[in-house]
């Protein structure tokens, strides 16, 4: 490396230091000027740094409250308001009540041990371990106890524990308790519907409304249901009595408006109290009318005979061979009352002849049978407002044997509500109307209703059902509910126990229409495994338990439904059949 001697300004500086200096600071630079410029630069740099900090401060101040943001998130979880649910007469079935809920903001609690001690002393049902876990968490917000009483709230206020507070929540209350349990469903702790109509409300816009924040208190119109609370109470009361009397495993009942498809009452025992959600999860307490599927037994004969009448291939007097058991392969079909002769189609119904029904169906053929059941909605899952529903169990391969058993209601399992819909269509003039839990007018029903059988078929079915109450298996109901001109069909379905049909365990049903000359309502009563009593002479068939129970139900609810009793009416052949012929 060479150093230019003449560029050395001062001889006193050793060349090595001069080199270092040149390298470090640069040659021939006025360092005083440079230093000044750089102090200026430092000022700018500090100005910039402090400006950034200032900007950050202002941003925080303007954006403000992440805290209130968090509170809003908590508010989101807070049970939001739901509309009241009322019955068809405006009686409240479900409503919101404001209750305080206790929360904590663990970060704000100074002495957590003290807080835990005081809170658990005031609310003895709080679990100390759980409270400890929650308070020790680093979360900004934890619930401690939802829905406390005003008295507890006052006591906690008096404790003066910092970092705990109350939020007003909406607690769902069901004033009628278990009466409407399956129908109305229930909500969870956050007031979100988890079953029944409550869940339907959520899936039909209420949840969206909540998310948008519009579901504020009193702005919501009450939801009107088709159910009549008085009828519901009467039905439930009678079913409870019957269930107890016959020591049945379960009892269920349904009252449906045949012209609109409205469900006026629905009870499935055992039920639960929606105010006590713990009960609702018991599998024994399912809704047997929509969620359970059953072999409906002889009730299905109504459909079988309607099919034959509607086809035009048979009339009320068509004869069927019922002399002996019907043999099919290795199976033999027997009747309870074997008449040992050829019987008419009318007698098939009134004597509830399995052999007769089987022959009626066989005469129509397998395909026609399948097509008819499909048409009257027995093959597909029935969906209503209630989210709980079950698909029917239909044979995968449908042979003549299936047609034989299905003709009298075995070998196909449907939800009872589905059968009710089918029978409604058989008696209301031939319209299949999907059932609903909401109010519906006849006009609306006619718009969505689908004709499935001719009117005269429907008339004949009404005649058969009425005849059944006059001389057939439904006589005992006629005695109890005299004057309402009821018609009905019984069903005694043997339950499958251990792979075989049991004679001891049966599912009995009674399907009644009232009044038979101009049906307005259908009443279904089902008893699961009723036991024999001395007064039933050891019989467990439907006519001995479900029918009298149904009669009592009708006697109680007919006045509520506005049906006046009429006495001294002519028998069915004159009142119904004759009228039917006149109109044709």
């Amino acid at each position, binding site marked *: 490396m060479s150093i230019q001697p003449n560029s050395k300004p001062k001889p006193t500086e050793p060349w090595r230091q001069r080199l270092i200096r040149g390298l*470090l600071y640069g040659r021939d630079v006025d360092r005083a000027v*440079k230093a000044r410029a750089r102090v200026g630069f*430092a000022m700018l740099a*500090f100005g910039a740094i402090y400006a*950034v*900090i*200032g900007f950050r401060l202002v941003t*925080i*101040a303007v954006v403000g409250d992440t805290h209130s943001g968090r509170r809003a998130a908590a508010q989101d979880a807070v049970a939001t308001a739901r509309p009241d649910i009322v019955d068809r007469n405006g009686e409240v079935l479900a409503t919101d009540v404001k209750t305080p809920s206790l929360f904590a903001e663990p970060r704000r609690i100074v002495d957590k041990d003290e807080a835990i001690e005081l809170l658990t002393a005031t609310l003895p049902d709080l679990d100390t371990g759980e409270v400890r876990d929650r308070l020790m968490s680093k979360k900004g917000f934890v619930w401690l106890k939802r829905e406390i009483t005003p008295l507890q709230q006052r006591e906690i206020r008096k404790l003066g524990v910092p970092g705990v507070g109350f939020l007003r929540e909406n607690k769902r209350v069901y004033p009628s308790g278990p009466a409407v349990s399956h129908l109305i469903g229930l909500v969870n702790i956050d007031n979100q519907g988890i079953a029944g109509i409550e869940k339907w409300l959520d899936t039909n816009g209420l949840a969206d409304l909540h998310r948008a924040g519009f579901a504020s208190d009193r702005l919501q119109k009450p939801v009107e249901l088709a159910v009549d609370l008085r009828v519901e109470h009467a039905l439930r009361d009678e079913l409870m009595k019957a269930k107890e009397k016959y020591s049945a495993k379960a009892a269920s009942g349904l009252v449906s408006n045949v012209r609109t498809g409205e469900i006026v009452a629905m009870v499935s025992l055992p039920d639960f109290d929606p105010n006590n959600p713990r009960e609702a999860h018991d599998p024994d307490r399912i809704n047997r009318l929509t969620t359970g599927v059953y072999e409906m037994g002889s009730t299905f004969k109504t459909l079988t005979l309607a099919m034959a009448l509607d086809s035009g291939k048979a009339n009320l007097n068509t004869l069927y061979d019922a002399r002996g058991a019907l043999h099919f392969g290795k199976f033999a079909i027997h009747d309870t009352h074997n008449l040992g002769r050829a019987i008419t189609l009318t007698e098939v119904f009134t004597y509830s002849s399995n052999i007769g029904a089987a022959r009626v169906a066989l005469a129509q053929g397998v395909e026609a049978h399948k097509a008819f059941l499909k048409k009257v909605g027995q093959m597909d899952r029935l969906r209503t407002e209630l989210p709980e529903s079950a698909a029917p169990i239909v044979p995968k391969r449908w042979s003549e044997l299936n047609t034989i058993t299905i003709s009298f209601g075995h070998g196909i399992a449907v939800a009872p509500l589905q059968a009710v819909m089918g029978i409604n269509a058989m008696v209301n003039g031939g319209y299949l109307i999907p059932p609903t839990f909401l109010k519906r007018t006849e006009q609306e029903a006619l718009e969505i209703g689908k004709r499935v059988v001719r009117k005269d078929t429907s008339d004949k079915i009404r005649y058969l059902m009425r005849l059944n109450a006059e001389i057939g298996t439904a006589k005992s109901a006629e005695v109890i509910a005299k004057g309402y001109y009821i018609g009905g069909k019984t069903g005694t379905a043997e339950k499958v126990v251990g792979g075989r049909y049991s004679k001891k365990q049966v599912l009995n049903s009674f399907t009644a229409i009232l009044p038979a000359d101009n049906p307005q309502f259908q009443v279904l009563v089902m008893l699961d495994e009723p036991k024999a009593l001395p007064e039933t002479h050891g019989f467990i068939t439907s006519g001995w338990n479900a029918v009298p129970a149904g009669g009592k139900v009708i006697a109680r609810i007919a006045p509520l439904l506005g049906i006046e009793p009429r006495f001294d009416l002519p028998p069915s052949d004159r009142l119904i059949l004759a009228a039917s012929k006149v109109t044709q």
Partner: protein
Amino acid sequence: MISREQRTPFSEWWWTVDKLLLAAIIVLMLGGVILSLAASPPVATRIGLDPFHFFNRHVLFLLPSFIVLIAVSFLSPRQIRRSALIVFAISIALIVATLLLGPEVKGSRRWITILGLNIQASESAKPAFVVLAAWLFSESARRPEMPATSMAVTLLIMLVSLLVMEPDFGQTMLILMVWGAVFFIAGMRIVWVMGLAGLAAGGLFAAYLFVPHVAGRIKRFMNPASGDTYQVDTAMEAFSNGGWFGLGPGEGIAKRSLPDSHTDFVFAVGAEEFGIILCLALLLLFAFIVIRTLSRAYSSEDLFSRFAASGLAILFGIQAAINMAVNLQLIPAKGMTLPFISYGGSSMISLAYGVGMMLALTRLRPRVEMESIGDATAAPTYA
């Protein structure tokens, strides 16, 4: 009042000292008292002391600090150099003693107890070191035959190695930054500025790789979900709780859960109780002190005064900026106190010493006097 007729040391001081700067510093010290009242009682209660323990000591240290501040501001540049040399020597000796005798707290030795006082010697070493470095750099410009730059490097290595042994990475970083800044102002070539910046980045990266807790802090800053960010989260919450005008004195809650509410996070505590307005005022105060000193240094004719005043201002300014930036989650968490606001006895006296020197070096001086300060034979600058 103070007459210009008679020249007394006091009247001379009064007419030459930067009174606005002095006022700003006094306001800052008073602000520290108020914030200490807000931030320290919960901490004292938490560790089982009298609630006003820290506050009382804060106020107690205020008086000697103020005396030091004023007394130092009377010194001439030459006296400042000499006193800095003495203070630096004592501080170094104390740091060595700390390393040998001091108790280990949280894995490092930073404190030594002398005559019942807990002393953090690195605090007093900082301003003295800055002044010495500034002096050496100015000498290198004035008297090239002296190996001043190499001495400055030696001085740096000595202090930094001691600080690393403690270990105290915060102070080390601060020292490195300020030393680099003074070197930069002294005229270092841009190539070297780049080089040093690169070196700093490399050092930081090395620390990230090899020092677990540094890596942890950086990771947590980059991705808050990766670890416990309780302190900074609480601090941020305090800012937003406070809003523009604060919750009011005594209403803050962050101070009850922040372990360092009276030292590292006093800014956040202040924000919660007195609002962002107060924070902006504090920020303006700091900015004013730093930029005012720098601008005085800018117009100073004397190289040493210019370098030293800028160095001290930068030391003060960077420390404040780091603390506020950490509080506001702008940079990874780094323990750094807020000058005059955070609690800390020895740090307050050291700050007073540093700021006193700032005042002294920014005093207006006649050119005659200034030239008589330096070596009579000192030529105008080289190059």
